[in-house]
């Protein structure tokens, strides 16, 4: 036919798909036409037993799933259930479970989408077979079809399980939570005892509502601290780590390996051990205050974790302790890549150490590590462990809603809302906000990166 090749270049892919379906139906033989209804029919008739059975089994599975399970959830997804759980005498009569309706309703939608794709593939497969036969060629044997799963179709074998895993444990839950952001699912509407339902954009309005009941002021304060934290945590560690790497790499410094090993200890030791210990070290009755008091340097303990401003600074400083070694490792490898003759000629021109750093080392490092800086920044936006192990977001502040503390990042706040306050609706909104912040930063910064703008820059 060859028409499909021409079609691919013209028009939208979507119209292309529909044109393909239509053409196949019109020009296909009766086996193909039956396959529109009974998937795999054409393949079976043409002796493609393996493919035919696979398609047929999928259709059977799909119908069985819809009838026995999916349909009853999908039909209620617009209301998320109307029959409330009631107490009749001493017995509890369970009504609709909004949680299940939403989750399995979504699942059913995904299954339908997936099935449609399979159905389309089934049609394409029929068309391909017809074309092959029309051209007088033989269809691949069943054995070959199976063997191709380990050769030309090996990607499908390799990816099937990982993609399924990501779907069930990431895509479905995320889709579910995105939907929760548009419902009133919170501690007063807990499934299965109570129903929850769609509320539109109410939760999003709430997050931009300022005043005593709204989340607005709290959200923006937490967001501001999240950005400030990510900025300092990324760049302080970056430059200090580079500095330490340069220091260790310097000619004439001995025991290079020893210094590195000492620094790397903070990566090796599990953070919950090291950070919890450091947290206690800075506590009011901890070691540092203990010694400072004993030596008479201070009269009362420094409120490291109590004073909001001090707590923030302490967190950033403690983070240096675990952040520098990581950067040092990366910088060490990269510094060795800078051609020695660049420095050589700079030295001949009479440049001093600082000038060489400023005009050779730094530009090179910034160029090469641009993407890394970006990933570090987004990782720090979501750096749960450091914040939670050190302060759990404390000190708490009366002016913030939902028990947010002065050192809470959006992510720790989200965690608290989910676990302690079961305010799922707002947690979901915060989660979406975190996504937006991450996505926007990544997009904007990524396009500004020198290594993206000018790939040849340093080659």
């Amino acid at each position: 036919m060859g028409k499909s090749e021409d079609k691919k270049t013209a028009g939208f892919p979507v119209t292309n798909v529909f044109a393909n379906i239509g053409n196949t139906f019109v020009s296909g033989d009766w086996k193909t036409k039956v396959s529109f209804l009974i998937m795999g029919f054409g393949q079976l008739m043409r002796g493609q037993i393996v493919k035919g059975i696979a398609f047929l089994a999928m259709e059977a599975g799909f119908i069985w799933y819809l009838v026995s399970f999916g349909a009853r959830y999908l039909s209620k997804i617009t209301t998320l259930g109307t029959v409330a759980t009631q107490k009749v005498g001493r017995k509890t009569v369970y009504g609709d479970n909004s949680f299940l309706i939403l989750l399995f309703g979504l699942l059913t939608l995904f299954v339908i989408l997936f099935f449609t794709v399979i159905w389309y593939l089934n049609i394409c497969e029929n068309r391909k077979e017809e074309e092959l036969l029309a051209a007088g060629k033989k269809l691949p044997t069943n054995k070959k079809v199976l063997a191709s799963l380990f050769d030309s179709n090996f990607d499908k074998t390799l990816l099937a399980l990982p993609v399924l895993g990501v779907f069930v444990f990431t895509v479905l839950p995320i889709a579910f939570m995105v939907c929760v952001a548009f419902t009133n699912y919170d501690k007063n509407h807990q499934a299965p005892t109570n129903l929850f339902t769609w509320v539109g954009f109410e939760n999003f309005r709430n997050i931009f509502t300022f005043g005593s009941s709204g989340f607005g002021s709290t959200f923006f304060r937490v967001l501001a601290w999240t950005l400030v934290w990510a900025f300092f945590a990324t760049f302080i560690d970056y430059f200090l780590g580079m500095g330490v790497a340069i220091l260790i790499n310097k000619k004439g410094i001995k025991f290079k390996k020893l210094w590195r090993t000492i620094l790397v200890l903070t990566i090796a030791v599990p953070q919950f051990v090291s950070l919890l210990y450091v947290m206690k070290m800075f506590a009011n009755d901890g070691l540092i205050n203990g010694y400072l008091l004993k030596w008479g340097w201070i009269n009362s303990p420094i409120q490291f974790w109590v004073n909001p401003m001090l707590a923030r600074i302490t967190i950033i400083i403690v983070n240096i302790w675990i952040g520098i070694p990581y950067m040092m490792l990366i910088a060490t490898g990269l510094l060795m890549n800078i051609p020695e003759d660049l420095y050589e000629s700079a030295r001949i021109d009479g440049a001093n150490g600082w000038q060489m750093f400023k005009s050779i080392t730094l530009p090179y490092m910034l160029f090469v590590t641009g993407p890394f800086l970006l990933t570090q920044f987004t990782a720090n936006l979501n750096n749960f462990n450091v914040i939670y192990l050190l302060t759990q977001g404390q000190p708490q502040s009366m002016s913030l809603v939902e028990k947010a503390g002065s050192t809470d990042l959006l992510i720790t706040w989200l965690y608290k809302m989910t676990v302690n306050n079961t305010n799922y609706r707002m947690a979901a909104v915060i989660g979406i906000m975190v996504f937006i912040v991450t996505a926007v930063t990544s997009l904007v910064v990524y396009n500004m990166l020198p290594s993206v703008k000018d790939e040849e820059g340093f080659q």
Partner: protein
Amino acid sequence: MIGNAISYLVLILISIIWLFPFFGLIMQSFRSYDPAVEYGGMVDYLIPKTFSLDNYRFLFSGETNFLLWYKNTIIIAVFVALFQTIIVLCVSYALSRMRFAGRTFLMRFWLILGMFPGFLTMICLYFLLKQFGLTQAGAVPGLILVSVASSGMGYYVCKGYFDTIPKALDEAAMIDGASRARVFLTMIIPMSKPIIIYTALVAFMAPWCDYVFASYVAFGHDSSFNVAVAMTRWVWTNDYQGYFTRFCAGGILVAIPVTILFMCLQKYYVEGVTGGAVKG
């Protein structure tokens, strides 16, 4: 020479700062918690007045489930490392070597998925696990399942490594009649020792710090806690004031094997991290 002297001074100072908390941790772990000897909670001095092994004895005595927690963590770590490595290798090979419909879509889609905060999905995951009986008493396999299931999305470093292996090698083998699967199993995997070790090492170390999800899944079920969940309680809950030295001793026991393992495989870690950082 003065320059070098200053450098040494700075390095020694840094080393002291870096080592001090670990030194403190070790010292406190040897302080007794027996009130007759010394106080087990927070004190304002570093060197214990009497050295004792009380804390270690306590951990092994069976008064708490410490050994069980330890076992749980090791089981989780080993299985997660094993399965996660397999999955990452499969995904990386497919994405690095094969060109199929939807490849770029898949990569973009996963990239965007990765921008959602992980904890967002916590309640949903909890529910899913509960359906399979993998919470509370079954938390250990549950945690393994969750960590492994989504690990396909973390293919970046490994794919970057595969991309550096010349494709001509694959092609030559395939001309000789080897199938894709054969190329993957007998050629690429043996050549990827550094990246396999890196992937496994990172996967192995993560469960030791997994507090958030582990505490949520194992909620209230003491015998399926991992070390992080169990021992954080000793520090955070006020009832456990006197447990601070016991936490230190437990922390040492947790840190030693992990640290030794890391130090032995440090070379591969550096390789992986540097490679990943440059390619982004």
